[in-house]
C-alpha cells in the first residue's frame, strides 16, 4: 500500500504580501519513507514550509518542490495527493467518523465496496472501529486526532504532513498518542513530515530532525546528533536544558573550579563550554571537581534536579538519579566526563 515518495525542496522561501519574511530561502531533502520532524519555536517558519509542501502556500519565485522527480510547485493541494493532519483536527462536523475517514476516497470516486473496506481497515488501524457511526462532537480530543490521522492516511498519500497534531492534547495523552503515531508511521512506511515545537515529541518520532529558527534551518540531524552535538547555542538551548560553564583554556587544558579537562583539538577559539544537566556527576571530593552550594532541589520522580551555585551567576542545573538527602546549603562537587562536554563558538 505504500506509495511513499522522496521530497526535494529547492530554493524555497516565503514572503507574505505584507512583507513578512516567514521563511528564508532553504533547501531540504526528505528521504522516502522517513519521518522528518521540523522543530522550532513559533514563528520559525516550520508551518510555512509544511504548508508549502501541501500546496496551501506557494513558495516565492524561484522555489521548486519535487515529489520524487515530479515538479509539483504549480500544483494545487487537490492534485498533490498529500495527507494532512491539522492541529485543530479539522474534521467535518457534518459527517460521521466513517464518513470523515472515507471522504478522500469518495472524492476519488472509489467504488462503495472498496471504500467501505478501506475505511474499516483504517478505523481498525487507529482502534476506532466501534465508533465508526459516531458524530465528531461525541469524540474526545485523542479520538478526534486518530480519526484525522486515519482520514489522512486512507487516501494512501505520497507524503503525510502533520502540523502540531498533539499540541491541543494533555501531556499524558500526548505521550501515548506519540507512540501510536510512531508505530503507525513505521507500519505504513510512509514519508512523513511532522511539525512541532515540542523537543520531546521531535526526539521520539523523528528519524531526522530539522531545527529551525527565524525562518532558517539551523541544523539537520538524527535526534542524538541534535542533542549531543548541537550546531549552536540556540539548538543546545532549545533541545533540552544545558549549562554554560565559564573557564580558562591554557596549554590545551580547560579549567573551571578544580576541574581540568582536555580542550578538544577541533574546538573553536574562545568557544563556550556547555554541559547537559544529566552529564554532571556528583562527586565526594573537591579535587578535580567544580564545587558549589546546593540552593534548591526538585524531586521529579525518576530523577532529582539540583540547582548549584558555583559563583558564575546563573545556578548550574544537575539531574541525578541518585537517592540522597541533598541537604540545602551543603557543598556539592560536580564532575564532568570530557566526552559529554559540548564546545560551541561563542
Amino acid at each position, binding site marked *: 500500500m505504500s506509495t511513499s515518495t522522496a521530497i526535494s525542496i529547492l530554493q524555497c522561501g516565503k514572503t507574505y504580501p505584507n512583507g513578512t519574511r516567514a521563511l528564508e530561502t532553504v533547501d531540504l531533502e526528505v528521504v522516502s519513507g522517513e519521518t522528518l520532524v521540523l522543530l522550532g519555536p513559533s514563528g520559525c517558519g516550520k508551518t510555512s514550509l509544511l504548508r508549502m509542501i501541501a500546496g496551501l502556500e506557494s513558495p516565492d519565485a524561484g522555489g521548486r518542490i519535487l515529489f520524487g522527480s515530479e515538479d509539483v510547485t504549480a500544483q494545487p493541494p487537490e492534485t498533490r495527493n498529500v495527507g494532512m493532519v491539522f492541529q485543530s483536527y*479539522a474534521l*467535518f462536523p*457534518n459527517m460521521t467518523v466513517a464518513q470523515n475517514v472515507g471522504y*478522500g476516497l469518495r*472524492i476519488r470516486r472509489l467504488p462503495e465496496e472498496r471504500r467501505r473496506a478501506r475505511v474499516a481497515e483504517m478505523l481498525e488501524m487507529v482502534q476506532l472501529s466501534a465508533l465508526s457511526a459516531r458524530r465528531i462532537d461525541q469524540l474526545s480530543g485523542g479520538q478526534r486526532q486518530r480519526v484525522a490521522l486515519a482520514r489522512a492516511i486512507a487516501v494512501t498519500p505520497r507524503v503525510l504532513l502533520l502540523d502540531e497534531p498533539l499540541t491541543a492534547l494533555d501531556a499524558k495523552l500526548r505521550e501515548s498518542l506519540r507512540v501510536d503515531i510512531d508505530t503507525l508511521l513505521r507500519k505504513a512506511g510512509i514519508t512523513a513530515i511532522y511539525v512541532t515545537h515540542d523537543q520531546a515529541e521531535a526526539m521520539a518520532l523523528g528519524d531526522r530532525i530539522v531545527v529551525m529558527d527565524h525562518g532558517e534551518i539551523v541544523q539537520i540531524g538524527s535526534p542524538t546528533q541534535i542533542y549531543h552535538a548541537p550546531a549552536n547555542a540556540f539548538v543546545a538551548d532549545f533541545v533540552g536544558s544545558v549549562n554554560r560553564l565559564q573557564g580558562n583554556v591554557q596549554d590545551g587544558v580547560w579549567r573551571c573550579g578544580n576541574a581540568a579537562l582536555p580542550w578538544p583539538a577541533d574546538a573553536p577559539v574562545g568557544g563556550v563550554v556547555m554541559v547537559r544537566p544529566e552529564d554532571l556527576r556528583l562527586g565526594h571530593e573537591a579535587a578535580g571537581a567544580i564545587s558549589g552550594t546546593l540552593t534548591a532541589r526538585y524531586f521529579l520522580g525518576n530523577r532529582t534536579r539540583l540547582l548549584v551555585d558555583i559563583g558564575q551567576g546563573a545556578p548550574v542545573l544537575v539531574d541525578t538519579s541518585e537517592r540522597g538527602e541533598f541537604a540545602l546549603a551543603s557543598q556539592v562537587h560536580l564532575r564532568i566526563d570530557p566526552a559529554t562536554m559540548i564546545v560551541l563558538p561563542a
Partner: protein
Amino acid sequence: MSMDGRKHTLLLGALMAPAAAFFLAFWLLPMARLVGVGASGPQGMGAYWSVLTNQNYLTSLIYTFVLSALVTLATLVISCIAGLFLERNRFPGRSLLLAVLTFPLAFPGVVVGFLIILLCGRQGLIGDLTKWLTGEKLVLAYSLSGLFLGYLYFSIPRVILTVMAAAEKLDYALVEAARTLGASPLQIVRDVTLPALGPALVSSGAICFATSVGAFGTAFTLATNITVLPMLIYNEFTNYANIPVAAALSVVLGVVTWAVLALARSVAGNTVTVAA
C-alpha cells in the same frame, strides 16, 4: 435549603411576572380574540373554510406564499455568494460597500416600493432603457416581478449579514483539509461550506420568508395588478368592513408562516446529522 429553594422560586416568579403579564395582555388575549372574531361572522367557523375555498382568497394565498418562497430562494443564493465573498476578501472600499449594502435595512416598505417604481415603473430607468434598445417599454414595477424585486431588495441585506457572521465562524482548516483530500471548489461548497452555513441559511431564510409573507408597505405601493395577502386583509378590513374574513385570513397567514418557521427550525437541527 428548601426554604431557600422556595424563596428562589418566588423571586423567579416575581421577576417573570411582568413578562408573563405582557405576554398575556398583548399576545394571548388578542390572538384568542382574533381567532374568535374569525369565527364570529354569519358563517361562523365556516369563515376559515371559505378562506381556503374562495377562489379569490385562495389565489391570493398561493400568490403570496409562492412569491415569498421564490424571494427567499433568490435571496439565499445571492446573499450566500455575496456574503462569502465579502467575508473572505479584503479590498479597498470593502467597509464602505458593507455599509451601503445594509442601507436598505432602514427603509420602510413604502420607500422600497417607491425605489422599484423609480427603477422599473412607467417612467423608470429600465423602461427608458428597454425602449431605447428594443422600442418596447418594459414595465415590471406593478406586476409580480416588481414585488419580487422589491422584496428581494429588503431581504438581501439581512441575509448577507447573517451569512457573513456564520462564515466568519467557519474553521478555514476544514476547507484546507478538504482541499488536501482532493476536493474541488464545488465539492468543498457542497461538503464543507454549505453544511457549515446550513443552520444560518435556514434560519435567515425562514425569517426572510416570514417577512415577505407579511410585507405590507412595499405591496401597498406596488401591488396594483395582484393582491397579496396583507393587502387582501387590509382591503377586507378597511374597505369592506368584512372583519371576520380579515381575522380568518390573518390567522391563516400567521399559522402558515409559523409552521414554515417551525419546520425550518427542525430541519436546521437535523441537517447537521443528515448531511453528506
